[in-house]
């Protein structure tokens, strides 16, 4: 039995790796993504364009504007004049933030009266709007502090695990989950569908290989390719992007294997149902996209409403995302990793069972 399965596995791997086009896709696709994602997938806000209307002209207001202009995230700072210009700046996307300074601003400051300014933000990108506002408020607070006495208390803030708050550190361990998902799912989803289209499936079925053996033979290549790709991603993450590897690599590899097994179950079920390669491609896609979005990769799972959070419990990528980030950045203890791994194992059992049932029905 072992010999038969091994023959099948070797054949599957060679069929994928011998073809220049598939090989290119398996190598180039993740490399391009590794090169672009960490830079593109950022929520940082930079180059906030400001339009200022300052009818006051006093020292306090000019200092405030200068403080905005001096902050690296605000660029450029343009002076405008009059209400109509204000009304036009945001709709035309000429500025992201409009600051309107009260006419009596400097006088009020000097007199110790509350002085007023108005911050108008383009809210069409809600994330950018909130971040912009918080930056602006910080500047305003700093300005107030600078011209008044020191406050009696301050925050001493320090970020653990990622001291410079680099987005790439957050994105890259997530990519480990996503890229290996795409590769393993595509490889397994296409494997049976392609044999059906080219007619080799019948030839396979007349050999003494049992359906369960064929299933195992189709599973392992996806696993091997996923793990190999994972190793490359971890190497690039550490070697090129300088992300520290705080936790145990063995722990990470073990969790990755369990995770990939659950994904491969989905791929096999899709493959058993699909009659053509188009159906295999779209079927795999139909699963991949929601899995990625509901994984916490770009937006935290805890921000999602209750019922969707419940839904994410069935998403293996959500669990692996947490493991990958935890192990890579925080040196998550083994017990905690185990706690996050068993749900994936459970999902794997379910997906593989479904795949086996579908496969048995379609192949019989």
């Amino acid at each position, binding site marked *: 039995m072992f010999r038969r399965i091994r023959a099948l596995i070797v054949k599957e791997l060679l069929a994928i790796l011998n073809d220049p086009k598939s090989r290119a896709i398996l190598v180039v696709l993740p490399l391009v993504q590794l090169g672009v994602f960490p830079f593109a997938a950022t929520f940082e806000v930079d180059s906030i364009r400001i339009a200022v209307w300052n009818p006051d002209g006093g020292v306090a207001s000019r200092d405030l504007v200068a403080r905005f202009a001096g902050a690296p995230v605000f660029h450029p700072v343009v002076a405008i004049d009059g209400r109509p210009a204000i009304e036009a700046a945001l709709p035309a996307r000429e500025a992201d933030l409009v600051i309107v300074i009260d006419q009596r601003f400097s006088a009020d400051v000097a007199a110790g009266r509350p002085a007023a300014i108005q911050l108008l*933000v383009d809210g069409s990108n809600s994330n950018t709007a909130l971040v912009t506002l918080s930056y602006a408020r910080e500047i305003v607070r700093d300005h107030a502090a600078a011209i008044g006495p020191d406050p*009696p*208390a301050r925050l*001493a803030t320090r970020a653990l695990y990622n001291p410079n708050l680099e987005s790439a550190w957050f994105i890259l361990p997530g990519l480990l989950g996503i890229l290996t998902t795409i590769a393993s799912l595509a490889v397994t989803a296409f494997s049976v569908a392609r044999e059906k289209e080219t007619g080799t499936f019948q030839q396979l079925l007349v050999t003494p290989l049992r359906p369960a053996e064929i299933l195992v033979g189709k599973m392992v290549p996806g696993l091997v390719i996923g793990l190999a790709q994972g190793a490359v991603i971890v190497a690039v993450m550490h070697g090129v992007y300088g992300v520290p590897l705080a936790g145990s690599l063995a722990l990470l590899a073990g969790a990755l294997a369990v995770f990939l097994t659950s994904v491969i179950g989905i791929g096999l079920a899709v493959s058993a149902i699909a009659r053509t390669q188009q159906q295999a491609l779209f079927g795999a896609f139909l699963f991949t996209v*929601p899995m990625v979005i509901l994984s916490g990769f770009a937006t935290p799972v805890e921000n999602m409403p209750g019922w969707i959070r419940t839904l994410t419990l069935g998403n293996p990528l959500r669990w692996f995302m947490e493991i990958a980030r935890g192990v890579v950045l925080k040196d998550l203890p083994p017990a905690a990793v185990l706690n996050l791994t068993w749900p994936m194992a459970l999902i794997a059992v379910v997906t593989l069972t479904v795949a086996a049932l579908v496969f048995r029905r379609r192949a019989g």
Partner: protein
Amino acid sequence: MSRAAARRLSALVGKESRQILRDPSSIAIAFVLPAILLFIFGYGVSLDAEGVPVAVVVEQPSPQADSLAAAFAGSPSFDPVYPLHRTPAQRLLRLGEVRAVVVVPASFEADLARGDAAVQVLLDGTDANTARIVSGYADGVLSGWLADLARERGARTAPVIEAESRIWFNPAVRSRNFLIPGLVAIVMTLTGALLTSLLVAREYDRGTIETLMATPAGVGEILAGKVVPTFLLGMASMGLSVAMAVWLFDVPLRGSFLVLAGASALFLTAALGLGLVISAATKDQFVAGQLAILVTFLPAFLLSGFIFNIDAMPPAIQAVSHLVAARYFIAIAQTVFLVGTEWSVILPNAAALAVMGVAFLGLARALLVKRLG
């Protein structure tokens, strides 16, 4: 167009329409996946952090320290727990159960009296974005508490600058108002580019390309036959998305629907054109499909301003984003939905889309010759 050509074109359009409608996977890609995406983005995905779990450790209870700790509980931004010591709090941080640890030191009361108190905030830096937001929230809580303290004591404080903020176009700062208009571009990319990328390749895979070439139908007619039904399908899934956005998710549509539809048509043309280029160049379904994901779907997700802010990307990647049609369409869609029919935004972006559409269709036309080998 001659009558014979018109008949050929309508026959080809009929053929492609039937083929698309007969494959359940085309329908899944054109309507089921868009609906799933809209539901997820409409209900599920939010960039707004509310009730962030934090651990507040008061090392030595005192009236002021307790008052500050209570201020964290009083803020809608935080959902604090109160471990007694630093160590269990840091453990919670490591396990990801809290996003930050706030430590009010034992000497807080005395330091505060001296005017030099420091409250330690340890952030979970893994998610840099959330960390920054949490840091801002914590700053706000402390400033508010300090202002209250000053008022209580009647002390002279720093001059108060009242920064009144107004958020235009999306006053409640709802993520879905920002995400769903962009999602329309993603949805149209699915039918426009992904489905289309298989259409020419399939004729090669199945050998029917020879039959087509041996008829008097011209390359333009063959391509038009493929473009028209996928265009209609793409517009239909756009209509579905806009309807769901407006009626199900209450995203305001402030501008003209006709303008949005016009821009969609331009975008769809560019996406279809690119799909056809991929299809005609690869002549192989597997490769075409994977390539379409790489050069259309992923860029529409990443490099278009759909979720991620293009301005914050490095210059090289910003330059690449100019080649992504979705970028221009998303700028139009967000404007038409949330701002209104603002021609100064719409016109230049629409012009870019038109140029791309013409270029891609022309390229596809040039790539497909009525000859084998």
